[in-house]
């Protein structure tokens, strides 16, 4: 079973919420739709569920076009951002709710409820109503209700957005474990890149109704296809430094001039040779990839520590040389003092180049 979206478009009046997107979710695959609020990810999900109608394009579930089917006829399971637990029913009744339509025997229903409640550790709270549950429990019940039956696909809308920081960290893992057992196409909508990175097999990064990149978490993180994805994924945010290409050697070693006059050679993707010297580029490098040297070394950017933020195991340092801010994350043991002059090295192979049209410059692999 698969989900296929073909040129799927949704317009509300003059506003185009979703703009002709194509997407495939394979059987058993978990796909995260990731993007800032208002990017059209929830609308896309709702079109798959049938709660919203496509203006143009098609939704195919298991190869069948379902555009004109009501949600109930599409046989999808969905968990809502606000959980949508039925407030007057107990947890057990909530879990059993989707099963009534399948005309199962009472015994079968209670068996399935028991199964799910065991998987999600809901045994202790089966008799309670949603009002008596903690946020995390509600969340698990919502998940339980969507996985109790055997639908064509699973849809999750911002499943963790209502939980506090600590609970979110716990639940990320928990849901991921559950998802690994469901062999159905699954779509998760989230605006939190950490959730997407942890839970997805693939991530589709959306912006303004379009998909910017679809790839594995690893690739989305390590090989962003454009400036938006690079900036959106990763915390602290990737350092994005405007620079001018001075020249390259064809093997990926290129020299860049920075504002303020400093110039250095950095090993980047060999595709840099496609650019002619003088081209304006943006260099992208993750805060954890920059290396701090106390003493000046060749091809390092000298700068000054502006501010230090201890984060426990790591330390985030803000550097400023008068022209640009750079964020660097180091182990907490590295001594850093505000006002110190340091030198930053760009290790080979970790610097991305974005051209003026904001696309990454990368040789085919």
């Amino acid at each position, binding site marked *: 079973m698969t989900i296929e979206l073909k040129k799927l478009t949704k317009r509300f009046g003059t506003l185009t919420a979703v703009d002709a997107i194509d997407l495939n979710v394979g059987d058993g695959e978990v796909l995260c739709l990731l993007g800032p*609020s208002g990017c059209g990810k929830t609308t896309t999900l709702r079109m798959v569920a049938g709660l919203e109608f496509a203006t143009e394009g098609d939704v195919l579930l298991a190869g069948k076009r379902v555009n004109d089917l009501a949600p109930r006829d599409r046989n999808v399971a969905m968990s809502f951002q606000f959980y949508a637990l039925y407030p007057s029913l107990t947890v057990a009744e909530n879990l059993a709710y989707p099963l009534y339509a399948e005309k199962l025997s009472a015994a079968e229903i209670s068996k399935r409820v028991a199964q799910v409640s065991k998987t999600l550790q809901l045994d202790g709270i089966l008799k309670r109503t949603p009002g008596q549950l903690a946020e995390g429990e509600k969340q698990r019940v919502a998940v339980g209700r969507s996985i109790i039956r055997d639908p064509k696909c699973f849809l999750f809308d911002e499943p963790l957005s209502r939980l*506090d*920081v*600590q609970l979110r*960290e716990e639940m*990320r*893992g928990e849901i*991921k*474990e559950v998802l*690994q057992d469901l062999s159905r196409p699954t779509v998760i909508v989230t*605006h*939190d*890149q*950490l959730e997407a*990175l*942890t839970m997805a097999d693939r991530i589709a990064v959306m912006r303004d109704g379009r998909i910017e990149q679809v790839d594995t*978490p*690893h690739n989305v*993180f*390590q090989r962003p296809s454009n400036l938006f994805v690079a900036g959106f*994924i*990763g*915390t*602290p*945010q990737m350092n994005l430094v405007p620079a001018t290409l001075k020249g390259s050697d064809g093997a990926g070693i290129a020299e860049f001039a920075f504002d303020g006059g400093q110039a250095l050679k950095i090993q980047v993707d060999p595709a840099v040779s496609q650019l002619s010297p003088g081209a304006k580029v943006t260099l992208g490098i*993750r*805060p*954890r*990839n920059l290396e701090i040297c106390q003493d000046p070394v060749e091809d390092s950017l000298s700068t000054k520590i502006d*501010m230090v*933020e*201890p*984060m*426990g*195991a*790591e330390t*985030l340092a*803000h550097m400023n040389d008068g022209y640009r801010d750079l964020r660097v*994350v180091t182990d*907490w043991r590295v001594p850093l003092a505000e006002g110190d002059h340091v030198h930053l090295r760009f290790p080979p192979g970790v610097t991305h180049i974005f051209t003026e049209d904001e696309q990454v410059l990368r040789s085919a692999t």
Partner: protein
Amino acid sequence: MSELKVDNLRRTFGKVVALDGMSFDVAEGEFFCLLGPSSSGKTTTLRAISGLEELERGRVHFGGRDVTEVPVQGRGMSMIFQTFALYPHLSVEANLAHPLRRSGASGADIRKRVGEVAELLRVTHTLKRKPTTLSGGEQQRVAIGRAIVGRPKLLLLDEPLTNLDAKLRDEMRTEFKRLHRELGMTMLYATPDQIEALTMGDRVGVIRDGKVVAIGTPRDLYREPTDTYVAGMIGSPPINFLDAKTSGDGQLSLPFLDRPVETPGVAGGQSLVVGLRPHDIALAQSGAAAIPAKIHLTEPLGDVTIIDIRARETNMKMVLREEVAAKFNVGDEISVTFDPGDLHFFDPSTGIRRERQAV
């Protein structure tokens, strides 16, 4: 000399004890964070300091005098509220100008100050608008602006980032820190989020059940948590707690190891709770120190990946760089190791930290 001295505050709401023996000092110009879970008394503390809350017991000293009886209007503090509490019926400009009204400053003066603050916080373009038309980040900045425009000697911040989304929170943290440096005012910041406390605070006071249970610099609290509560509170992913025994001097038995670990300074024959931070667990190259473990779950966070491992029935979390972690899959067998020097020891019954020499 301490600018703010909070001494043994008590406040109850019906049967609920909000504050009970809350005491701490904040030095002039210091950025002090109160860290504690929700309803541990942070908000009540700030409100008591500001004079918005009456106290049953305890004194508040500020700027060298006892202000316990001084009305809220006369304390010269300002506050940033969790809900921002912007005046919805006034324009941004009027919101920012309000704290200056009582100072008797001239209209021109007020306009100048408002302009400066708006400039500083990059909200100049919103001055004529009503707060409800602003984005969350802009509202937050206006709230900050209103709190600092009167140049208070003490700025109280009550979970100001709770209502913002993750990305904005990261940005605002840095912004607060920068503001503190530029304005040099004393700040008292309440938050339930350890990362906020660690990144911003000069010192952090950890609150539990209405009183401060630990005070220290972020680094100290991370390195030498005073008890299991503090240890569990600080650090992400949270510290791994393990039940351990010492078999002899310097010999520590850990549940996931079939042999004792050499740990100098540990006395024999006692039960301990051992804390081991996920970041302190490393992949083992090879050799005797290697502990065999199985990968249970991976959570890629971008640069780093949290790996849940299981070693002899014991679940632990560790953190690996993404490019390293990407090589592994769930179910893979790996070897890990740690430096015994990174272990933290706690009393199993009280949870209080034990220093090595004392152990």
